[in-house]
């Protein structure tokens, strides 16, 4: 009697198992299990810098040379521009000469909405300038090219000193108008 009851129970279990199997096959592939973010490794952090092309003096004295430099990522075009200028006026890569007077600070960088970027530099860019139209051209081109080469939305650059328009930096180049990018003073191979 007892064996009979056990056989019936086994048959019921077997039927239930077969039924469950048939039901699972009939409803298609198994849906992926829900995965909580705490169950997996965190995704890689967003890039915290960009690689910008900056311009420094050629030790051979022929013009500017381009160098690729890591610059902190900015939250906006204006912030990115300021970060680029800080790098351009900061530590020089080895094998280059300074073209912006040492001690010059970036006071501000802002945009006017028509593609013109305004670079406001401290007074040292004039008071500590060596003079000479060649040195003056290198200073202007290094700043203008640093901005326009890395910020596609900036087509031209206007230079200000201590927040004001100035006639020239050292008596030669007219700063009344914004400057377009000028790579004619860049010599040598592209930046490594």
């Amino acid at each position, binding site marked *: 009697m007892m064996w009979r009851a056990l056989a019936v129970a086994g048959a019921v279990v077997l039927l239930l198992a077969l039924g469950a199997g048939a039901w699972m096959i009939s409803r298609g592939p198994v849906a992926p299990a829900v995965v909580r973010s705490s169950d997996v490794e965190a995704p890689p952090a967003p890039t915290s810098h960009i690689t910008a092309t900056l311009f420094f*003096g*050629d*030790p*051979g*004295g*022929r*013009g500017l040379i381009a160098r690729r430099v890591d610059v902190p990522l900015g939250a906006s075009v204006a912030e990115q521009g300021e970060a680029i200028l800080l790098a351009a006026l900061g530590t020089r890569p080895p094998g280059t*000469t*300074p*073209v912006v007077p040492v001690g010059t600070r970036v006071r501000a960088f802002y945009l006017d909405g028509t593609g013109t970027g305004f670079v406001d530099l401290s007074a040292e860019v004039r008071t500590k300038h*060596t*003079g*000479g*139209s*060649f*040195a003056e*051209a*290198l200073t202007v081109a290094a700043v203008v090219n640093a901005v326009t080469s890395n910020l596609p939305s900036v087509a*031209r650059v206007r230079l200000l000193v201590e927040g004001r328009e100035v*006639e*020239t930096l050292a*008596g*030669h*180049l*007219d700063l*009344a*108008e*914004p*400057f*377009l990018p000028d790579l004619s003073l860049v010599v040598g191979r592209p930046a490594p």
Partner: protein
Amino acid sequence: MRYAPPALWRRHGLAVPAMPVLALASALLAQAQAGPGAQQPPAAVSPPSFAGVVVDPGHGGDDHGAVGATGIEEKALVLGVAQRLQSLAALHGGIRVRLTRDDDRALTLDQRATAANSSPGILFVSLHANFSPSPKTAGVEVGTYRAAGPSAQEVRVAPRRSGPAPPAPPVSRWAALVRWDQAQAQHVERASVVAQRLVERFRAMGTVGPRAWFQAPLKPLSAVNMPGVLVELGYLSNADDEGALVSEERQAALAQAVLDVVLASIENGALPAGPR
């Protein structure tokens, strides 16, 4: 070629400029009536007729310009060369030379342009000495004006095209208004010819810098209403250039080279001949 009187004359039914013709006829009649021994009335005040070369020694006063390793200052160096150029021209007698400054005084760039434009010349020569972050850069360079920004680019001289020259626009000379700060734009072509000849001359002297002839928005030239060139006499950051520039021989040679090119340019029509 068919003669076409200007619009102003046509409007008054004239085929020839009436006022100049009438004035000339009156003068001839008065001369005939007065006879050969008659006294001439004093000449009326006329516009300045200088038409020589204006030489502008850069910087001056508190503005020392570039300073060499030995202490030579750009402002003194260029004044010396300018005065030599003036003396050579006077000696030669072929052209008159005026200086925008003949002592160590500060002048703004607009004051220099005003002085030049008030007494029109055939050429404006701005003298400077150069500087480079590298002590290796050396040589003489010559600059001409080129507008910088987008608005200024509109006044750039159109490049030469092959084929016949386009007809002149139907405007009179008096209607050609020019912005003060872009006066040089209309003289760039002629200035470029002189600049190239200067570079050739300096190259023959064996002393041309990396830019040789450069074009830039040069403020010392922008408001000058005659062909203008900016001559960088050498690099004070280079020991050889600085050593040469302090010598009287070098200064005289540079002044002579500029004068020779001016006279040759007048001779072959690149510059108009002024009164001697």
